[in-house]
């Protein structure tokens, strides 16, 4: 690395406290450079979604600063969030439409984006007729069509089955290899993070902090077999160990209650609502999903 590419996103000691006093993030700092694919893994409710919303500018930090280079953001949500009354192509056109692009340009971009995710032949259909995996690809095409400077992925493959998930991951990697965009990818799956990214940020329980940054040295393009290569599993094991070390002392008697709290906290995080008040001394024990 002789020359450093432009930083596309930089967080400097960022904290976020919700109005009800819940500290979602605390002292988060990292830089995402052009051409970098960085994943964020962490337990449920650790503020991963909050982190993405800060990066997108949907939320303003209560501490620290978020810096972004470039205005065009491709946000891929947890759900496909397609408008059911629009055809697949018109859904992809939506963001270009919101940005005020002309009709011809919109259609050209939408068709191109759909072709890239392999959905050109369903352009005229409504999302309701597609499988969940296909809808997710439409959502991906919608993000592609803005030709973003920065991609933000909020657990985009969480709702699909394991096989589709692997397919989508490979498709995303193909797009990344071709375009070399900057991407921040939030996921529950440590293996997926290792397979896709050059760097993995490991986050702590709420309030979310960055526990470690793990570099994945393997060059792109990566073959599907790399998911099961010893180097990958070794890295995944290291990340899982970091996450496990962050787990509170196992308290068998309170296991059920803790899980319930973790689920609540997760839902609150997802919904971007005021989270249920968490007692400051006693942290919810979150289960680590690997």
């Amino acid at each position, binding site marked *: 690395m002789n020359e450093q590419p432009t930083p596309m996103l930089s967080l400097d000691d960022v904290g976020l406290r919700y109005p009800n006093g819940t500290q979602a993030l605390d002292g988060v700092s990292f830089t995402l450079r052009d051409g970098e694919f960085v994943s964020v893994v962490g337990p449920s409710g650790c503020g991963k979604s909050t982190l993405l919303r800060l990066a997108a500018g949907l939320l303003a930090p209560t501490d620290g600063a978020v810096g972004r280079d470039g205005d065009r953001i491709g946000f891929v949500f947890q759900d496909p969030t397609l408008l059911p*009354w629009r055809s697949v192509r018109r859904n992809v056109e939506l963001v270009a439409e919101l940005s005020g692009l002309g009709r011809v340009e919109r259609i050209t971009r939408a068709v191109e984006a759909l072709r890239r995710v392999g959905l050109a032949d369903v352009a005229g259909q409504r999302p309701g007729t597609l499988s969940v995996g296909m809808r997710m690809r439409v959502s991906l095409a919608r993000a592609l069509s803005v030709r973003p400077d920065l991609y933000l992925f909020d657990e985009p493959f969480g709702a699909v089955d394991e096989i589709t998930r692997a397919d989508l991951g490979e498709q995303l990697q193909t797009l990344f290899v071709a375009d070399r965009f900057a991407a921040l990818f939030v996921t529950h799956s440590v293996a997926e993070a290792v397979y896709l990214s050059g760097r993995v940020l490991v986050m702590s329980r709420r309030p979310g902090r960055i526990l470690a940054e793990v570099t994945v040295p393997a060059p792109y393009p990566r073959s599907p077999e790399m998911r099961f290569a010893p180097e990958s599993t070794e890295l995944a094991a290291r990340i899982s160990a970091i996450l496990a070390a962050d787990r509170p002392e196992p308290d068998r008697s309170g296991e059920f209650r803790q899980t319930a709290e973790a689920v609540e906290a997760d839902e609150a995080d997802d919904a971007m609502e005021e989270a249920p008040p968490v007692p400051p001394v006693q942290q919810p024990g979150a289960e680590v999903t690997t």
Partner: protein
Amino acid sequence: MRGRRLARAGPPAVVFVIAMLVWYLGSYALVDPQTSFLLPPPHAVVRVAFGDPYNLSELLQALWLSARVAMIGLVIAVALGVGSAILMSQARWVERSLYPYAVALQTIPILALVPLFGYWFDYSTTSRVLVVVLIAIFPIIANTLFGLRSADPGAHELFTLHRAGRWTRLVKLQLPAALPALFTGLRISAGASVIGAIVGDFFFQRGQPGLGQLIFIYPKRLQSEMLFGAVILAAAFGLAVFWVFGALARRFTDWHESEQQRPTAPFPSTRAVT
């Protein structure tokens, strides 16, 4: 195709035949011939009410009057209802100021106001339409508001992310998302508007007679065939309105889950599922 149509039309037809049989049975076996006006047989109703040109024109004129009142009232209710729901969806304070009164409209007995409208606006079309508007507006406000709020929060974030203005958000996201609920409200209100037109007319007792007045007058004159004829026309009109709005809803909200598979279809729809 013919088999499917038969399968769909068959069962209601059977029920119709049974109902007719029960009606005849009632007319001839249960009701004393001296009091046959209590339940005239179906063919007598058809002959007197619909076969006689003078009687038929009396009924159709009344139907036209009531239908006009119902439709004008419904159009006004939709315009005002959707308009105020949009205003309420844009700012909480508007909702907090207006919604309690919308609920109040629903709870006050509108018919108690009928004499008052008579004083103010005479017994003309205006007061009849007013009754319809008051009866029909609440389902529209409530359903439209619910529908405007039903848009996917993720889609809202997407619009925010791409700096969509209030208007764009309303036109491209909230209104289309509200359509299924709006049509539900419309169907309820359309039925209510027919009832409002007829019941309002029933209570007015003055001015040009609509179906409501005829329904009030016929029993007093023991014209029970005419009474049945008026009731049948009123019911048919209500059904027609319901059907029209059902068809409109299917046309404009065919993307919605509720229209994906019709419960009446004997086979799953042939929509391509890939």
